[in-house]
């Protein structure tokens, strides 16, 4: 199952907890035995409602050894969104530290999920004979990561053990493992970038993984000290983390970083150079990855290079093609772009997902004869290096976290006084993009606006909440009736946003 058939040590800098390899192995066995007694078995889908802890990683291995498929759930999601995901994934078990609130437990039970308190796994005693697990087939489902649709039609990326292993082997071949021997993760373990690549690639190669809570501001302002104290050699990140760190954190005193990745959002040449100066790392690379391809797919592992806006580099364990067509049914070879010509970025990799959970229609829309349409626009230069020039995917890239307009539209549409709605990207100094929203309402009095704000807060996770929202008379649509998000965003720049929650609060 593992790249080196070896699990590395796990440490949690904030609590000081440290499990060496023997402790990790022992806990895997103990927790596997506990989950087996709970009835977890081959083929079960299991929600994990916690992440970024040593227990999460050990549980992942325990579930895989039992033949189950793990589904990490973002802890920021609302009960409504968890209910939606459970409806789509039909998990047989739902793992929590402690217990969910009664209402959510009831909703999960209605979907057939049994609640397990994962904290009890540590109380497993020697009274029960350890369970060894079973032989896991490479084509069994291993991991499902939901990328969108948490409020409506969930899109779950299904990876098998084969596709995950292909990603890790490709990375090992392209990047080696030496630079990853003390790896820090500051990213959420519910996303491909944080989980599959930043964490699992080094850890399953026997390297030491240091786990911190994701995007926690007080950690980032102390990043230099954290790197020093734990002698970190590698971390991956997103531009947001670096903008805050460069502004507020003292650089490491004794730089030991050997390699730094930045990904999930466009990295400007300016920020790239600033990261190089701050970290003193010999290798600062822009990494390009997509959950569907097991994340890290290409990067600047190309020897000497000068940072440039949009520069990605060479593929890791795959082939990249640029075409003029976005049609998955068209013959790709017939429409390939010339060197330097921008077009659709397609990828062929053994690390490609099995498909979207229960959505063959969506899978067929982006996969053709093993080629995956990324939704990005880019070009290949004469050296075969990839440059990104834009994207066609309908998403808001909020500092590396992807927010899908349709998810927010779906929630606001259900508000009883909504006539029409349009979610769009707004520019943000730190994040690059944030969430904007325009809504047509049957009533626009202050109590109605407050009720809509409360409705959104109740149904949307914090990172999905609109940063600014506007009441408008109409939503622009194109000739086919499709919402024109760009036109709406442009129109709203001349309007004043609704500000309710701030106006009613004083201390």
């Amino acid at each position: 199952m593992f790249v080196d058939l070896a699990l590395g040590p796990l440490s949690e800098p904030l609590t000081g907890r440290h499990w060496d390899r023997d402790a990790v192995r022992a806990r895997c066995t103990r927790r596997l035995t506990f989950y087996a007694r709970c009835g977890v078995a081959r083929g079960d889908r299991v929600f994990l409602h916690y992440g970024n802890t040593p227990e999460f990683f050990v549980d992942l291995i325990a579930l895989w050894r039992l033949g189950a498929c793990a589904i990490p759930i973002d802890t920021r999601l609302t009960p409504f969104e968890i209910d939606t995901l459970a409806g789509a994934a039909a998990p047989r078990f739902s793992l929590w530290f402690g217990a969910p609130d009664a209402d959510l437990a009831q909703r999960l039970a209605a979907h057939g999920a049994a609640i397990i308190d994962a904290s009890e796994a540590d109380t497993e005693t020697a009274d029960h004979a350890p369970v060894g697990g079973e032989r896991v087939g490479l084509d069994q489902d291993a991991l499902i990561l939901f990328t969108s649709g948490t409020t409506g039609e969930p899109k779950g990326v299904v990876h098998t053990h084969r596709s995950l292993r292909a990603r890790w082997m490709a990375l090992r071949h392209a990047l080696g493992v030496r630079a990853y021997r003390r790896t820090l993760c500051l990213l959420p373990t519910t996303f491909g970038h944080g989980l599959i690549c930043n964490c699992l690639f080094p850890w399953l190669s026997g390297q030491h993984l240091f786990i911190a809570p994701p995007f926690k501001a007080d950690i980032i302002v102390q990043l230099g000290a954290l790197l020093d104290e734990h002698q970190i050699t590698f971390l991956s990140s997103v531009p947001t983390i670096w903008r805050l760190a460069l502004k507020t954190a003292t650089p490491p005193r004794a730089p030991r970083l050997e390699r730094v990745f930045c990904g999930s959002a466009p990295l400007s040449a300016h920020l790239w150079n600033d990261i190089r100066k701050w970290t003193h790392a010999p290798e600062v690379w822009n990494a390009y990855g997509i959950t569907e391809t097991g994340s890290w797919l290409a990067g600047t592992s190309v020897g000497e290079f000068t940072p440039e806006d949009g520069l990605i580099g060479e593929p890791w364990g795959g082939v990249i093609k640029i075409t003029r067509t976005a049609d998955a049914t068209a013959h790709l070879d017939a429409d390939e772009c010339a060197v330097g010509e921008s077009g659709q970025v397609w990828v062929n990799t053994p690390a490609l997902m099995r498909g979207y959970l229960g959505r063959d229609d969506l899978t067929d829309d982006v996969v053709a004869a093993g080629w995956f349409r990324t939704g990005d626009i880019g070009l290949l230069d004469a050296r075969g290096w990839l440059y990104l020039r834009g994207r066609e995917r309908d998403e808001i890239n909020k500092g590396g976290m992807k927010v899908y307009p349709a998810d927010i539209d779906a929630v606001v549409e259900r508000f009883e006084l909504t006539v029409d709605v349009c979610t769009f990207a707004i520019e943000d100094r730190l994040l690059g993009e944030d969430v904007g929203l325009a809504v047509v309402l049957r009533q626009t009095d202050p109590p109605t606006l407050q009720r809509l704000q409360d409705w959104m807060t109740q149904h949307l996770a914090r990172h999905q909440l609109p940063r600014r929202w506007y009441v408008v008379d109409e939503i622009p649509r194109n000739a086919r009736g499709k919402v024109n998000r760009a036109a709406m965003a442009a129109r709203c720049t001349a309007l004043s946003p609704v500000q309710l929650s701030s106006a009613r609060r004083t201390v």
Partner: protein
Amino acid sequence: MRLRDELLLFITASGIVLPDDVGTDTSLIRSGLLDSSALFELALWVEDRVAVGLDLTSFDLAEEWDTLAKLERFIERHRRSAL
């Protein structure tokens, strides 16, 4: 408008949902209420108010800005020293 109300207005306008019982001594940073993007925006906002070339790496920002009361004191102190 009082400085602390300006601060509150700014924080909530940044999309941060504060608890109903937020007080002047509620932890904002160490508790995780302010995430990395909100803290970055706050840093720019404080720089605007203080109007001096603040070196934000020269003090423990997570400690000195952790509550509304501490933030208020920080801004007032630096405003005075800038006069």
